[in-house]
């Protein structure tokens, strides 16, 4: 056991740090506005130009085949530098691992490079008004036609869909609950997209209406009927380290400590306690990267989302009424969603109890 980085890892850290110091944009407008969305895409194209947009991917798709440790180093530097959240995150962190595992070489060649350069931005179309936690209850259908499928139904709360170019989602192709689902990739141009205003007033997500949208066979991911299995492989990425990298929480904790520097000891104690948890999450990830993610990602999901809430709630206490004028407030609103998306924390606790601890259903 050691916590020292190899000379190669240190050199990688230095390269990333230097590049970010020279290139990170000053605060961009919210990615949930048209203007901000385009600014974020430009930023990610710049990242891609330095081959830093998807460091863990194989070189042929724009990555540099970074090891998991290097990926963690990249993320630490990324968030410490003050760089913005990734507009491509649902694509690169949720769809891409699925494409690598289940996609055909043609699908990989067609989509991964464009995704890495933010030329395509993907939205996840899983939830439906009547199928949130109980995702397998979804009712949107795909019906067979010559050369492909017609999609019907309604998806909702799809992040970034207001401006994204593509979607990936599950549709029912037969009535067997889990085995009747198929995983589709589709351009959003033929889909009716209705932006939904969120708590902060921006259109962070949208409703997708499918009225017989044609999808050719070569945009089915995996085999028809395999959608549930494939989707479950993706949920572990969503809860796990790909999306919620420790660097993000560590950077927030360190900013919180700076914010609390002159506060009274009780508030400083809370900030220090958050730093302990952020460090715990970082160390845990170093220990976990080599192994299976599996159900332990559910533990991480509850841990990071509650830590994020605690940190932002403390920032509200520290800043008082002035908070509304700062990025901390946007962070606070988003942290409130953490226990809801990526599988609610109640559902995660059920998974931990049943699959990790072996309690009866």
């Amino acid at each position: 056991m050691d916590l020292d980085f190899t000379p190669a890892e240190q050199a990688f850290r230095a390269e990333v740090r230097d590049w970010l110091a020279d290139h990170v944009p000053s605060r961009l407008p919210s990615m949930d506005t048209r203007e901000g969305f385009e600014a974020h895409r430009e930023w990610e194209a710049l990242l891609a130009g330095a081959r830093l947009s998807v460091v863990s991917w194989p070189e042929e798709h724009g990555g540099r085949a970074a090891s998991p440790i290097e990926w963690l180093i990249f993320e630490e530097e990324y968030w410490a530098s003050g760089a913005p959240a990734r507009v491509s995150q649902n694509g690169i962190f949720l769809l891409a691992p699925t494409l690598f595992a289940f996609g055909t070489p043609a699908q990989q060649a067609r989509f991964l490079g464009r995704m890495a350069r933010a030329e395509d931005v993907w939205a996840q179309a899983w939830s439906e008004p009547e199928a949130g936690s109980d995702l397998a209850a979804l009712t949107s259908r795909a019906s067979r036609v010559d050369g492909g499928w017609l999609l019907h139904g309604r998806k909702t709360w799809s992040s970034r869909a207001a401006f994204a170019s593509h979607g990936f989602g599950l549709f029912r192709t037969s009535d067997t609950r889990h085995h009747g689902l198929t995983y589709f990739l589709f351009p959003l141009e033929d889909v009716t997209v209705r932006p939904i205003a969120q708590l902060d007033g921006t259109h962070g997500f949208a409703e997708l209406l499918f009225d017989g949208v044609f999808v050719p066979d070569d945009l089915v991911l995996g085999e028809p009927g395999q959608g549930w299995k494939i989707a479950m492989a993706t949920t572990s990425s969503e809860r796990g380290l790909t999306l919620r990298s420790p660097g993000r929480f560590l950077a927030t904790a360190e900013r919180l400590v700076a914010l609390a520097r002159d506060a009274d000891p009780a508030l400083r104690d809370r900030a220090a306690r958050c730093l302990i948890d952020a460090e715990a999450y970082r160390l845990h990830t170093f220990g976990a990267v080599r192994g299976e993610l599996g159900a332990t990602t559910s533990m991480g999901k509850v841990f990071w989302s509650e830590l994020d809430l605690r940190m932002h709630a403390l920032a509200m206490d520290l800043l008082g009424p002035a908070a509304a004028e700062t990025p901390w407030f946007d962070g606070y609103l988003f942290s409130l969603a953490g226990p809801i998306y990526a599988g609610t924390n109640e559902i995660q606790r059920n998974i931990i109890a049943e699959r990790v601890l072996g309690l009866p259903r």
Partner: protein
Amino acid sequence: MNFAFTAEQLGFAAAVRDVLRDRCDPSDRLSCWKELAELGLFGALVPEESGGLGLSLTDLVPAIEETGRAAMPGPVVETLVAGPYAGVVGAPRVSLLVDGLALDADLADLIVDVAGPSIVSVRLEPRRAVDQGRQPFAATVVDELRVLEAPAADLVRKATVGVSAQLIGVARELLARSVAYAKARTQFGRPIGAFQAVKHQLADVAIAVEFAAPLVYRAALSADNAALSADRAAYSADGKDTGAPVGLSRPDRDVSAAKVAAGEAAALAARTALQVHGAIGYTAELDLRFWLARTWSLSAAYGTTAEHRTRFRQAVFGS
């Protein structure tokens, strides 16, 4: 960078676990001592040329966790950490005198006053024990017998990491017992573990333990490195490793983080275990009380959870 235990480290812990499972009786203050001494546990940190195993604290953390898991009584951690300085190999026991209190001093062959540090002879007066397996004594030094070549900070730091590792073990065992009970106990015609309110409490314990343990592992590494290096500055130079410390040295900061997280995880495990067991947990009929008491005594040892929270805050903010 490799934040995982080796097969040897885990193998040693498994050997310790096997002995503890077969032989440890949490109500007998000396049970298992001889068997574990034969495995080499108590001289584990002593260099090989002096007859020990020459291991580091990091090597031993999984084994120490097992002693917590078994609620093994006696001055386990104290003997381990003082061993290399007092020249203790084999079966002798060491008690540490800290702030006027010496734990299990009646069982000890040597008492080390960490203020010296030195081996001392003392007059003892038993104090109320919340935990039958850890008997505290008020100790007054009568004579200083031998001054040790040990940095006192190193002794206390390692003892703190040791009890933190034991707290993790205690918490794991409390969780395992609670889960087993929740599967077996039925009410309203179902195992109580099928009720979501019970499940969620146990899931929270699992999460707390899962994320406290790595902090203890890091603290062990830091304590080992601090002992190896006289140059404290080496630990604050690493700017990116979660920020440069302002007040306390980096190792002390890591040790306090570990004690806080382990203490809180064990407190949650204990509180939840009692709740899940209902009234039977509140009786002396069930062994649960040994682990509950161990949580209380270890949480207070070498600085309470609250004291370490303050120390960590001071390390981060300078005040």
